[in-house]
């Protein structure tokens, strides 16, 4: 099993990255960015499908809520009806998870490739020899230059900058696709997921090699760009507003009460 992982996934990614770094003026950081763009291009059809699937799911929310009310005491029937509804609409409810699941092995392969390729210790460098192809371009690139934009790609970023970038870009991307729910329970759950995922990845960034964090940031930015053009603008993401807040009914009522008490006085 481990052999298959090495032969089919890790070794191609590792050698590809090293060869890319040689092409990219001996910059391993640039190679990671180029690989990220390539991965996102390959996953583009899945990303489109995910975006469409998410939009369709959101469009179905009112109908689903009706079903939930109708079959509140019969969970099995509700599930059957929901699946029927998905089938009629041509939606796979798990469709939006595929791009993420497919990217998982790439993340792992990239993490392992970064650790191996940069060979932070003599033992790592020795181990690397057994995973390299006999291409001249690979041999001439070893050992790699781990410096990129002030970062040491094999080590975590000692500042919080990369962690903030990872968290922020992921949060924006998630906010763009997460529809506000009228159901308070669902709204709370969505809010929690939207916050926790970026926080978790930001936390990972503090202890993972910054090369991997670089991949996350670039990948998230590309995701935001794709979502912007495919999903039609910023979606459900709203920029913080600094304009005066429009008056609400509650504030009108308070003002009326205040005016009333002033007249009495």
């Amino acid at each position, binding site marked *: 099993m481990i052999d298959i992982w090495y032969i089919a996934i890790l070794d191609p990614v590792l050698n590809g990255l090293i060869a890319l770094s040689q092409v990219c003026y001996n910059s391993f950081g640039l190679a990671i960015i180029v690989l990220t763009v390539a991965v996102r291009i390959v996953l583009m059809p899945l990303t489109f499908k995910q975006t469409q699937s998410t939009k369709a799911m959101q469009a179905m929310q009112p109908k689903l809520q009706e079903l939930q009310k109708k079959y509140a005491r019969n969970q099995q029937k509700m599930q059957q009806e929901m699946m029927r509804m998905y089938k009629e609409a041509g939606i796979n409810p798990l469709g939006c998870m595929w791009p993420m699941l497919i990217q998982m092995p790439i*993340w792992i392969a990239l993490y392992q490739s970064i650790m191996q390729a940069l060979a932070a210790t003599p033992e790592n460098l020795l181990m690397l*020899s057994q995973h390299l192809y006999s291409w001249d371009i690979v*041999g001439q690139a*070893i*050992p790699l230059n781990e410096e990129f934009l002030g970062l040491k790609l094999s080590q975590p970023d000692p500042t919080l900058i990369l962690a903030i970038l990872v968290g922020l870009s992921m949060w924006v991307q998630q906010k763009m696709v997460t529809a506000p729910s009228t159901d308070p329970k669902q709204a709370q759950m969505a809010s*929690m997921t939207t916050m926790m995922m970026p926080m978790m990845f930001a936390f990972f960034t503090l202890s993972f090699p910054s090369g991997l964090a670089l991949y996350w940031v670039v990948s998230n930015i590309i995701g935001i760009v794709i979502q912007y053009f495919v999903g039609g603008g910023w979606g459900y993401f709203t920029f913080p507003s600094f304009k005066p807040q429009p008056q609400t009914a509650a504030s009108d009522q308070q003002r009326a009460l205040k005016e009333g008490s002033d007249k009495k006085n």
Partner: protein
Amino acid sequence: MSRIKKYIKPLVLLGLILIVFVTGCGPITGGGCSGTQTQGWSGFALYKNVICFGSMEGKVIALDPVARSENKTFPSESEWSYLVKVSTPGSACGAVCAPSSSSAGLGIYDTPVIVEELVYVGTYTGKIYALNASRGVVRWIYPREGYDTVGAIVGNIVTDGKSLYFGSANGKIYALDAATGDFKWEFQTSNKIWTSPTIDNGIIYAGNYGGNVYAISAETGKEIWSIKIPSAVSSSISIYENSLYFGTFDRYLYAIDKANGQEKWKFATGNWVWARPVIQSGRIYSACLDHKLYALDALTGKELWQFTAESPIVSTPVISGNYIDVICDQGILYKLDLDKGTKVSSVALGYTAYGDLFAEGDTVYLYARDHNVYAVDTAKGIVSWKFSSLLK
């Protein structure tokens, strides 16, 4: 209950991601995601009746083979150990930060070198220690107290009897006075150095990871010549007559003219030549990570014979009489006929050694990855004794 239920789904998703990451980074880093571990791979130096080496636990240890064969309690009269303490966490320690505890050691890569009564060893934390070879007491440490360390020392120190010369991960070659540890000169190269320099007739030869080979005056530290080759230098440099021999990461063994660096020949191998080539009587013996030991004509580069081991060969082989001993990654120690490359005997130890092999008569000493020093009688094909560096 419903409050708990609503958290289950996102928590399961986040947990899955966490599991994937933790298990995903395990196979490479040995289970840890936060960094890499250094272990070290020192070889041996002989002082009178004891052999000295640097352990994977950061100790310099002197062993008496007679006392070990009699299974005496360590240390016997002529034996000692000295722990190289890591008191400056993260200081110039290359890619790896040292443990914060001042009592912990960090694996030693440098094979000790001995001049008269002193044994010298360089550490991964960037310090040189001069110890009394009889008692293991510190004579001096470079850099001096309060000064910055010099960067990780992975290659060996070389000496001409008066001075010590070594390369560092900061890309510099240093010269120190052997008796006092006083700084003599430093020479900045273009990239880090993880291999050993070599000295011949007052000239230091060193390769670095930028694909450069330098010839430097041992007296002044001034460059005599330098060359740029297509790939970085993977092995330490050996000298024979008018040539320098070394391996590169693009899988070649090079022979260049030591007077000007001009290429004489290059020999294609199946992987990196990591071990320092061993030369005797016009023949070069080069162990390779492609599982092979090559015997070549030193003058022409023509292959004379090759021996294929079970797995990659990392450590530098050792010549003993008419035989050459070599160990492969699976821990099989082979004794080969020097003339024909045929196998005379083999001993399966189960653990390999990355440091240089050391021979005295029919006994080969090696420091294996299981933290044991093995004394192997290659004539009889048996382990005479073994000693664990995990001292209690």
